[in-house]
């Protein structure tokens, strides 16, 4: 029974091509919109997740507190309250995996006739543990370099590229703010950070060298911040408590007094960004789904017109023995076919559109097969859902009334 009905449905749709095309257009736009929106949404989500992964996991940063000079309060990180002693004490905490002290500043780096302005971080070899950052070439400087404030440097990919091009940087000497530093290694590529900064545009030097030789501070041995990696995600609340009580004790802060430092959970910040991306992706999908519904209503509208136009035909069929369910099935098949046709063309245009967006708008996209299967399934169910009412109306026509219809 389905065979001849399918043939008739195809015939009915192809006998009025312009109408079929216009009816399908709604579905085409809906499905294409859903696919493009989901691809853009998942692309954004993926790039956020990549950035989070590149940041390192289970991270805290301890910032020096806000300074206050004659009533003028400055932002966090300006006071010189954190010391290497603090960083070493935090290392001793049970729930802490690794600690990287950090001093930073901008500097001009020079090699031969090339120069490049970049951000220089003074830190220890644990920085690479905390940031989960592998080496590309050479080696990280070690404890002895930190103790002796050795003039050694590790370059990010961007800096290495700017200064050396395709030349091997390891073993060469560069100048940072005029002083010579031996390049011991080059970091692996890391990509963009959450806020869009190029993480590879950086130079690492021993924290002691930065403190004493590069950015000479008012108080020797102070740090701008300390990065702390907890042993696990579950241990993070405990780590936070331990850091707070340790530093309160070391800095002599009494209960009720404002602390001169600041502990921030970076992973929580990252998760907020991730969930924002997720919500955005959902929102885009939801907006696009509205056009699917509108497309479905278009199909229902045309099917209702079609049932009215073909009242007499329905009368003939019923008179010569079509069961009500045969009529129902025939019209339902037509609307499903319309919706699937729209779905197929919509998927093609959606995938094509996504590739165009990726190519010309430079937006990260991710086409998932789930989205395509979903778009198909939804368009078929839109066909059933919005085809049901017109089909039922056709199936319920009284044969005598239908035959009398002109």
């Amino acid at each position, binding site marked *: 029974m389905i065979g001849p009905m399918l043939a008739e449905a195809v015939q009915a749709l192809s006998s009025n091509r312009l109408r079929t095309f216009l009816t399908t257009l709604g579905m085409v736009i809906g499905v294409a919109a859903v696919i493009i929106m989901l691809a853009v949404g998942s692309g954004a989500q993926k790039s956020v997740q990549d950035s989070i992964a590149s940041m390192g996991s289970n991270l805290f940063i301890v910032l020096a507190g806000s300074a206050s000079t004659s009533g003028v309060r400055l932002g966090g990180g300006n006071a010189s309250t954190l010391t290497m002693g603090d960083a070493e004490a935090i290392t001793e905490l049970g729930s802490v995996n690794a600690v990287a002290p950090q001093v930073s500043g901008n500097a001009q780096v020079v090699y031969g006739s090339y120069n490049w302005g970049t951000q220089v971080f003074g830190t220890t070899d644990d920085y690479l543990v905390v940031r989960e950052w592998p080496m590309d070439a050479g080696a990280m400087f070690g404890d002895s370099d930190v103790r002796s404030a050795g003039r050694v440097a590790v370059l990010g990919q961007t800096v290495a590229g700017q200064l050396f091009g395709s030349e091997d940087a390891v073993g060469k000497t560069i100048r940072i703010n005029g002083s010579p530093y031996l390049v011991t290694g080059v970091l692996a590529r890391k990509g963009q950070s959450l806020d869009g900064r190029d993480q590879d545009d950086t130079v690492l030097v021993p924290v002691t060298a930065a403190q004493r030789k590069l950015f000479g501070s008012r108080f020797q041995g102070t740090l701008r911040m300390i990065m702390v990696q907890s042993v696990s995600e579950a241990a993070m609340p405990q780590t936070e408590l331990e850091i707070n009580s340790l530093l309160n004790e070391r800095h002599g802060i009494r209960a009720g007094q404002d602390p001169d430092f600041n502990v921030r959970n970076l992973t929580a910040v990252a998760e907020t960004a991730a969930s924002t991306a997720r919500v955005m992706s959902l929102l885009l999908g939801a907006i696009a789904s509205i056009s699917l519904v509108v497309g479905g209503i278009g199909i229902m509208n045309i099917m209702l017109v079609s049932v009215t136009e073909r009242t*007499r035909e329905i009368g003939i069929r019923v008179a010569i*023995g079509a069961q009500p369910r045969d009529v129902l099935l025939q019209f339902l098949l037509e609307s499903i076919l319309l919706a699937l046709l729209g779905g197929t063309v919509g998927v093609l245009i959606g995938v094509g559109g996504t590739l165009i967006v990726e190519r010309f708008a430079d937006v990260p996209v991710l086409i998932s097969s789930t989205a395509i299967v979903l778009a198909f399934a939804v368009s078929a169910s839109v066909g059933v859902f919005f085809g049901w009412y017109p089909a039922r109306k056709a199936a319920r026509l009284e*044969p005598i009334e239908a035959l009398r219809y002109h």
Partner: protein
Amino acid sequence: MSGAALIRVEGLSKDYVTAAGAFPALRGVDLEIREGEFVAIMGPSGSGKSTFMNLLGCLDSPTRGRYWLGDRDVAGLPNEELARVRNRHLGFVFQGFNLLQRASVVDNVALPLVYAGVPRAERQARARVLLERVGLERYADSLPSRISGGQQQRVAIARALVNRPRVVLADEPTGNLDSHTTEEVMSLFSELNREEGITLVLVTHEPDVAEYAKRVIRFHDGVVVEDRQQQLRTAQRAGAVA
């Protein structure tokens, strides 16, 4: 030629509910039509003849009364069963031909077989046999709009016959035809009745058309007012055409 009772109605009545109250369109009709009969039903507009045909065709259910088709009581069957009876036991020919305009002639003839669940090859074969019977096999693959009104009505007759019904019901089958094609269609009817013993019931208000029938039943105000056999002219005219 006439055999056992094929159609038997007793006290068949139909009331239509209108704004002005119930209107009795048919008021207790008793009739018997035997196998192989050729019956013309006549009467003015509003006499109840169309209502009677709709009831015979199982397109409508009577308000009161009984209707046996063969030995089966079909009054008051549910819609699905009525559709099955129409498909298997009845053939319809309408005034306006009522062919599907988008389907080819042979597909139109085969349509009842689709709903009977007959496989495609057999549908096509049976439809072509019937088209040959009505002399239109060369138009099998044309669309109905490409052939004349008389030819279209012959296609409709082929469609009515394709599922080997027990009776063919024709409602004003020549109402849209000129006198020449009327004769063409009516000759085919009497030929089918005479040579193949097909039972025919047709509604008409044209005396010329009624003359082809062997029996004339006249309705007035919802009751049968005349029921007579006629022999002579039918045989003559049918003989002349054949």
